[in-house]
């Protein structure tokens, strides 16, 4: 694990200004919408426009394609600040990065020039479609097929749990291009940038979810959908590699989201402990409440530092990038669940109601233990990094 020189970080003046600007934007423009977004379950188009107008959606993209060219740590700072106010809103940025990563990692110059500028400006949204009903953690078991036919591929199959699948203009779809039983499972998949709507593509339903309720999670079907071969990202059989490379860079973003949710809940709990009176004193003067708050702070800060460190290591090209990404998401996701649960505890009965945002934050935190690889998959990735991967 120990590479020559450990990467260190200290936030630059620019990163601090960006963080503080996004915190103000989130406090003033996003937080006031969060409860209503959660209640209505509607995709917050206004927040999408706001993030686009402030160049927030341009963060993950290179400057030559209209992006801001931010490093991974800066992207994490942005996601954290938005998630502190509203998890659903932070997912708009997360998924814009997630869906685009296969193109950024494996796309040709022509493909980048064709797709990225509209994604960086926020004019178009992109989704990432790997998961299928029968292929969740075992993503290589995907059954959606892509068969070459002249200058096109024909896609058949279905995808499930696709964030922004119903609002995206482009979807990075992973499909089997080689079903030969002799081909290793990890070389059967290829990636395609599918521009929708297109004949044969449909959004079958949206999930009814515990949290991130304003973020549409779609079930998609592909019935003889023709995709130009020019939209295949990378070579045939490179899909798995692209998906895993994507996760190395997207999982720290989910960790940052978890840190943001936890920080938001901690701040509500602190504020409440300062003002709520019981037994003739502010509950913040009670040692049991103090201990809860101190432990929450320790969990948030340790998750934050691990997340920032992971982002820096991954950007520096660490050989064990997958381990860093999984460490960050594992710790940050679990800590966010613990901290938001404790925040509800600090607020007591009030915390269980929608008078306060902590119950929403607790529901939202749960997803960070599930998506982009469950916590069990993160442990698998870490253990393989420690023990060596079986061939």
């Amino acid at each position: 694990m120990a590479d020559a020189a450990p990467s260190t970080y200290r936030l630059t003046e620019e990163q601090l200004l960006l963080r503080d600007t996004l915190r103000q934007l989130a406090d003033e423009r996003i937080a006031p919408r969060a409860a209503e977004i959660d209640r209505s379950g509607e995709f917050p188009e206004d927040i999408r426009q706001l993030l686009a107008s402030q160049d927030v959606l341009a963060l993950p993209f290179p400057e030559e394609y209209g992006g801001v060219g931010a490093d991974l740590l800066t992207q994490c700072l942005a996601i954290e600040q938005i998630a502190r106010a509203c998890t659903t809103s932070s997912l708009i940025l997360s998924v814009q990065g997630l869906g685009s990563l296969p193109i950024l990692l494996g796309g040709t110059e022509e493909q980048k020039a064709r797709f990225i500028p509209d994604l960086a400006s926020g004019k178009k949204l992109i989704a990432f479609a790997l998961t299928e009903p029968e292929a969740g953690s075992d993503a290589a078991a995907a059954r959606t097929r892509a068969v070459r036919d002249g200058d096109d591929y024909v896609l058949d199959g279905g995808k499930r749990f696709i964030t922004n699948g119903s609002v995206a203009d482009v979807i990075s779809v992973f499909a089997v291009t080689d079903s030969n039983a002799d081909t290793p499972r990890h070389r059967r998949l290829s990636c395609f940038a599918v521009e929708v709507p297109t004949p044969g593509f449909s959004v079958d339903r949206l999930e009814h979810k515990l949290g991130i309720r304003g973020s549409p999670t779609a079930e998609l079907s592909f019935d003889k959908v023709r995709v130009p071969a020019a939209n295949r990202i990378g070579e045939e059989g490179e899909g798995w590699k692209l998906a895993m490379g994507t996760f190395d860079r997207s999982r720290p973003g989910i960790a940052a989201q978890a840190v943001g949710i936890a920080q938001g809940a901690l701040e509500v709990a602190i504020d409440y402990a300062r003002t709520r009176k019981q037994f003739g004193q502010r509950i913040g003067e009670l040692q049991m409440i103090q201990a809860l708050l101190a432990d929450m702070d320790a969990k948030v800060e340790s998750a934050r530092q691990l997340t920032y460190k992971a982002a820096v290591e991954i950007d520096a090209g660490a050989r064990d990038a997958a381990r860093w990404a999984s460490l960050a998401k594992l710790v940050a996701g679990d800590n966010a669940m613990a901290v938001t649960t404790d925040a509800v505890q600090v607020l007591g009965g009030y915390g269980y109601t929608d008078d306060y945002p902590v119950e929403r934050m607790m529901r939202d935190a749960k997803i960070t233990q599930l998506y982009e690889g469950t916590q069990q998959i993160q442990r698998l990735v870490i253990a393989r990094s420690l023990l060596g991967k079986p061939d």
Partner: protein
Amino acid sequence: MPLRIVVLTKPVPDPAAAAERLGPDGRLDRTASPSVINGNDEYVLEAALKLVEAHEGEVTLLSMAPPNGLDTMRKGLAMGAHRGVLITDPALAGSDYGSTIAALVAALGQLEFDLVLAGFDTSDGVGGVIGAAVATKLGLPYLSSAAKIEPDPGAGTVRVRRISPAGFDVLEAPMPALIVGTQLLGEPRYPSLKGIMAARSKEVATKSAADLALDAGSIGGDAARTKVTGQEKPPARGATEVVRGTPEEGAKAIADLLASRRLI
């Protein structure tokens, strides 16, 4: 004709931090709290940015501050200002209005501009005299309490809608002129992320007292003609009643309370 606008900006203690306090010498302890651009200055900066977007031109920020005033100036640059001038010198610490005005006047003397914009007042000093005094010293037309600023670069004039008890006065003056703006100019923008990234490469010139040919004996704390001789906390406020419920319920509760005190 492009417009050249100088905006006076001051770093002040962040009101959100609520940590503003005076040091033992009666001066503001600037290490006690993070600094931000004075809120009213952001409104005139917004107006300046809109004017150069409409007419072309450039916005220069001018501050007198300790060296870390650069950090707050970056935010103004990230909002879209083109460059900055920071007057900073240990000899200026403790300046009262007199030496602040002298420094700003000297720095403006080295700049070319059509308009100087200043905020209504600052949230730390709350004097509200700097704009008028700088205009007087420089012999510039002084247009105050501006709710709208309409320059005509071709004619070399500027028209201002000034808030008055009756509504608005419309004033017109030749440029260059100094305008003190109000919050009616419009909400300041958030810096865009591209703006933040671009701010690093923008030029900020620093000027010492010597660069501005200021007389060392007439500036800073020793030359200040006003001194803070004491400080007191405001008297504690009475008990606070928090009204919870829907906006309708809240409005009714507040109206009932005011009526019970015969205030409405």
